[in-house]
């Protein structure tokens, strides 16, 4: 569904991605793990068109999408939930969800998705008129995911959904990730520092170090591999 081939990108003089190759297959949950500063978020920003692809190709459903403007990429159904949630604090919960559907013109489908999101996250239904800035961290993460769902993604790009959350909330969020993957047949590209959690939920995974992919394979196999165990699972 999505393939990166030798993708290089970065910030000004800094080259953060030094030739990244990876594949996300339709219907799967694919994890990308790696240490701080490895280039995981940069990978997502490059896919979403916030950063220029300096070399290489990004192919989505047979079409090259590198260096398209972000709104074109959103239109194609690649929706990102960025690191740190980035909900709009001055909007109510409901307004955040509605702006998630910014590019959609199908009022009925949008209404149906709104109902779906509020069922998926009952806490958001309860808080729908509350200013999003006053939600707890976990609620904000749920809102960020729900807002992305309102855009009706074909491929959902999640950047560290577990960041700064309590174990119980993390568990809840990962259960929901699996539910949307199964119920909605939504493909999910999941970035995580929490490697054990990511490898448990994903079908396949890639390990990133210093702007390169160093390991890849079935999530279960990677979880057993000596390198991953030592470097990321602390075993």
């Amino acid at each position, binding site marked *: 569904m999505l393939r990166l081939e030798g993708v290089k990108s970065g910030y000004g003089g800094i080259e953060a991605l030094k030739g990244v190759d990876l594949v996300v297959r339709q219907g799967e949950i694919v994890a990308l793990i790696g240490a701080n500063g490895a280039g995981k978020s940069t990978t997502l920003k490059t896919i979403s068109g916030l950063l220029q692809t300096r070399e290489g190709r990004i192919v989505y459903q047979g079409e090259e999408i590198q260096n398209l403007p972000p*709104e074109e990429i*959103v239109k194609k159904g690649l929706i*990102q939930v960025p690191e740190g949630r980035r909900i709009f604090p001055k*909007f109510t919960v409901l307004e955040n969800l509605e*702006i998630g559907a910014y590019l959609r013109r199908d009022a009925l489908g949008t209404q149906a998705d709104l109902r779906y999101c509020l069922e998926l996250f009952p806490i958001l239904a309860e808080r729908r008129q509350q200013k999003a800035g006053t939600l707890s961290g976990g609620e904000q993460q749920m809102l960020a995911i729900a807002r992305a769902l309102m855009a009706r993604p074909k491929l959902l790009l999640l950047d560290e959904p577990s960041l700064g959350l309590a174990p119980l909330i993390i568990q809840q969020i990962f259960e929901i990730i699996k539910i949307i993957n199964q119920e909605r047949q939504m493909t999910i590209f999941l970035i995580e520092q929490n490697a054990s959690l990511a490898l448990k939920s994903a079908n396949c995974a890639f390990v990133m170090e210093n702007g390169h992919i160093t390991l890849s394979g079935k999530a279960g196999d990677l979880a057993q591999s000596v390198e991953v165990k030592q470097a990321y699972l602390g075993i």
Partner: protein
Amino acid sequence: MDGQYFFELAFSGLTRGSIYALIALGYTMVYGILGLINFAHGEVYMISAFVGLTAAAICSLLGFSLWAVLLLTLLFAAAYGAAYGYTIEKVAYRPLRGANRLAPLISAIGMSIFLREYVILAQTADFVAFPSLLYNLVEVDFLSDYIGSGELILTLVSLTVLGGLFLFLRYTQTGRAMRAIEQDREMAMLLGVKVDQVISLTFVIGSALAAVGAVLISSHMGQINYNIGFLVGIKAFTAAVLGGIGSVAGAALGGLVLGLVEAFAAGYVSSDYEDVFAFGCLVLILIFRPAGILGQQQSEKV
């Protein structure tokens, strides 16, 4: 205290204030979205007054009714002002996006000087008469002790436009996108908002509002020149800061407060002192509530 006099002053304050509010919105919307004070805003106001003058003359010559002349003049000036706002953003600010904060500021001042000089050369440096489009449109009996029919129309038109803007910002997806960009531009992009387009629209709307204000005040004052944008610009900017720059409701409120303060100062003290009170009020707010009446203490935009 004389009740009659009090209400007269209150209505006169409301009239001025609603105009300050219209113009203040242009400052505050641009500031909210770009973190930039658009110093050329007052000049858009001034140029729109000249456009309004031409439009009014043509419409009158064509023999339209008084109402039609007013509406067409407003529309024409708004369209022209909007085109100016759009162009100023494209020419003076967009190329500097992402540059040091000082660069667009200097560009704004340059743009402002350029527009003034252009009007002096292309039109005249003298005052020219502006037709009074607002009078003899309606007969008002019930309020006529307190407010003239022209002022009443002026206030109603500007309050209607303000109301329309609020509805737009609150209930349309585009208005929401504007407010979303203010909060987090990159996130808005990730939801598919074409940020450049929405920024252009912000300038277009702000400038059209200033143009409406320009036609209304000019026809109230009866004359215009190349310099009228300056004081009105400063007053409207004061209103925006008073209400909390970046806050749309704040700009409206700040405009009304400023108008009322001026009217009462002029009425109960002396009209020589109205500016002293207006800016004194600003100083007090800045001392005790630096973010403005409705503003929130904000960290620097990055």
